[in-house]
């Protein structure tokens, strides 16, 4: 039997709605990226010959891009820390760095794509290249989306309007780190484990 109670029953420390919504979005992103990664995994295991095709990819370039993205996660989280301290100038600096690193990642990726396509390795070439372009393309779109969001926050920060964007920096950060994590897995899936 339920006893009558009038006290509020919200959890002791309520989960902010925006954070809950963001994590819901990220969960749906996890299953989406996860779906295509699972598909790639089973195909890769079923086709040992993809090993040779994957060997065409440039590990040094991808390593560079990995370092770029990992570093951008650091700058993003430092922006969040600066928000917590109320340090407006630093927020703008870190956000600007994040945006720049995100753009570097996309440009390097575009260079890679151009190189592969010039060598005749187009999506229809084989299953591997279908997955390569599908997965990196979907990921690059997510990076671009993050760059746009971060750029908007940067503009707001430059205008010294920290108050309204304070928790948005945290949310954008969650998204940005998620995109980073996806790359952390795409890197070994596509580039490493080839030899």
């Amino acid at each position, binding site marked *: 039997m339920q*006893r*009558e109670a*009038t006290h*509020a029953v919200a959890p002791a420390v309520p989960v902010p*709605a925006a954070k809950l919504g963001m994590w819901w979005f990220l969960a749906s992103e996890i299953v989406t990226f996860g779906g295509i990664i699972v*598909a790639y995994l089973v195909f890769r295991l079923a086709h040992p010959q993809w090993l040779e095709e994957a060997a065409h990819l440039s590990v040094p370039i991808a390593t560079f891009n990995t370092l770029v993205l990992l570093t951008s996660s650091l700058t993003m989280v430092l922006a969040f820390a600066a928000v917590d301290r109320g340090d407006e100038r630093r927020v703008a600096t870190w956000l600007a760095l994040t945006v720049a690193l995100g753009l570097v990642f996309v440009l390097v990726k575009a260079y890679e794509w151009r190189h592969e396509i010039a060598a005749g390795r187009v*999506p229809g070439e084989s299953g591997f290249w*279908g997955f390569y372009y599908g997965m990196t393309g979907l990921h690059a779109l997510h990076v671009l989306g993050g760059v746009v969001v971060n750029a908007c926050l940067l503009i707001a920060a430059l205008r010294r309007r920290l108050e309204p964007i304070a928790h948005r920096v945290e949310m954008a950060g969650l998204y940005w780190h998620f995109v980073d994590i996806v790359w952390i897995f795409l890197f070994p899936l596509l580039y490493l484990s080839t030899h």
Partner: protein
Amino acid sequence: MSETSGPQAAHAVHPAPQGFVRRYLFSTDHKVIAKQYLAIALFWAVVGGLSAFLIRWQLAWPGEPVIGSGLLPEAFWDGDSWLAQSLQYGSIPAEFYNKLFTMHGTIMVFFVAMPLLLGALGNFLIPLMVGARDMAFPRLNMLSVWTLAVASVILLISFFVPGGAAASGWTAYPPLSAVPELSEVNWGQNLWLIAVALEFASFLMGGINFLTTTVNLRAPGLSLFRLPIMVWFQCIAAVLFMLSVGPLIAGAVMLLLDRLAGTSFFIPSGGGEPLLWQHLFWFFGHPEVYVIMIPGMAAALEILPVFSRKPLFGYRLIVYATFAAGFLSFIVWAHHMFQSGMDPRLAMPFSITTILISVPFALMVFAMIATLWGGVIRFPTPMLFALGVLGVFIMGGLSGIFNGSAPADIYIHDTYFVVAHFHYTLFAATFFGGFAAIYYWFPKMFGRMLNDTLGKIHFWWTFIAFNATFLPMHLVGLGGMMRRIANPLNYDFLQPLQPLNVWISISAFVLMLGQLVFVVNFFWSLVAGRRAEANPWQANTLEWSTASPPPHHNFDTIPTVYRGPYEYSPPGVAEDWLPQHRPLVGGPAATA
């Protein structure tokens, strides 16, 4: 997502927006959004119903010109209008037939059932039932309904592009759906994929609201186990949808790349794997069935206690059983693939989980029956439809055992037995559940009562015609008739079944005709129905504690909740109901 600087934000009173556009088109009010979903669902129900009409016409009288087509002049049929091209002098060619059942399935599942049961019911009821002023993210809510509207327009356009609408079934199995030459459909299938993917995006956005509103915006005193079943089930449905749809979104992108970018994810000649799509589709597809069914069941579970004047039997048991069913729904999907060429050793494990899933649903049915025991049962229209859900769902659940058993499925798979089965379950949820909900919450939604006599006529007409349509379909299936064939008369062994097919078609037409009663009742009551008081059914849940229809801000003061939602005929209280928000004056605190 700036509208949420704290749980209290949505409890702030905002003035109602003025002007038609802000008020009815780009509204952030969950009640208006619910009505928009309802309108979309009803529009598509008409299109889906028309396609069902043509399907049944063709199956009863293959090749005969559709009734009424003779009224149009010969010159019209010689012309190159869309209709003249689709129907050949009024009769239905096989390629158009394939489009019809493809779009019928797509429309009914994605554009009728989900907008009606989640979009309209979830949006309307969750904030009212938890005592909130609106959803947690009102603007996201608006975005979700408009995304669905865009998806609807794209799906509608797909009928009219060259080559016509998609024709590879609502399951879109590749390679048929992956190579335009194989299905003779080009942009129709591309648009289909885009529309369905947008629809998924729409309901993902909706789901954020369902969960966040329930977690953060509950009225004081409304603990989780005082939530109405409807809120529980909507949230479980939203979570099931979110967790299962991702791989299919990925699959839809891959299929679109196969069609447009020359990849071969699903095309075997290029090294692809057609079975992968089936796995991705059904990994989503089975939870999706419950996404639709659970809110339909919830409508019945809300209504049964009210008109039995009894507490819902085993409230917690029902919630736990639904969790169990939701969990199991992730490990049963391969039962759609027993004969697909998947590893046959997988069949028995999936058969076992499938048949096990009958246990939680059986518990739910038994709890519904136990709720009736010892009650004081009245039979207004919502109660009739709720009992309809119960009865039809029992039938659908029982026939599911045949399909779930892998060896029996060898014979039954892809026959009309399957068609009969999923119409018993999904029709039960969508139409009986949906109508129960509409008759029950119409006064809250529109401030007027639906006519009860017309409602009863509508119920009995629907119930009888429904069973006359779908019960014989089991027999046709046992007779061996395959799904998705345009002409059963082509097959000698199906000839003896033809009288049954004619009977099914006539019953289906009667069923469709019966819905006119509802249409008349709906629109007539909208303008001339009896005005509804705040709580016409003497129900306990919070939505009845405010005016009918509720003001823009839902509650003048946020109610405080003292007990669970189903305290009917509690001991020590003179009336046979005790609303959630009414304090017991001077009574012992432990009664509820």
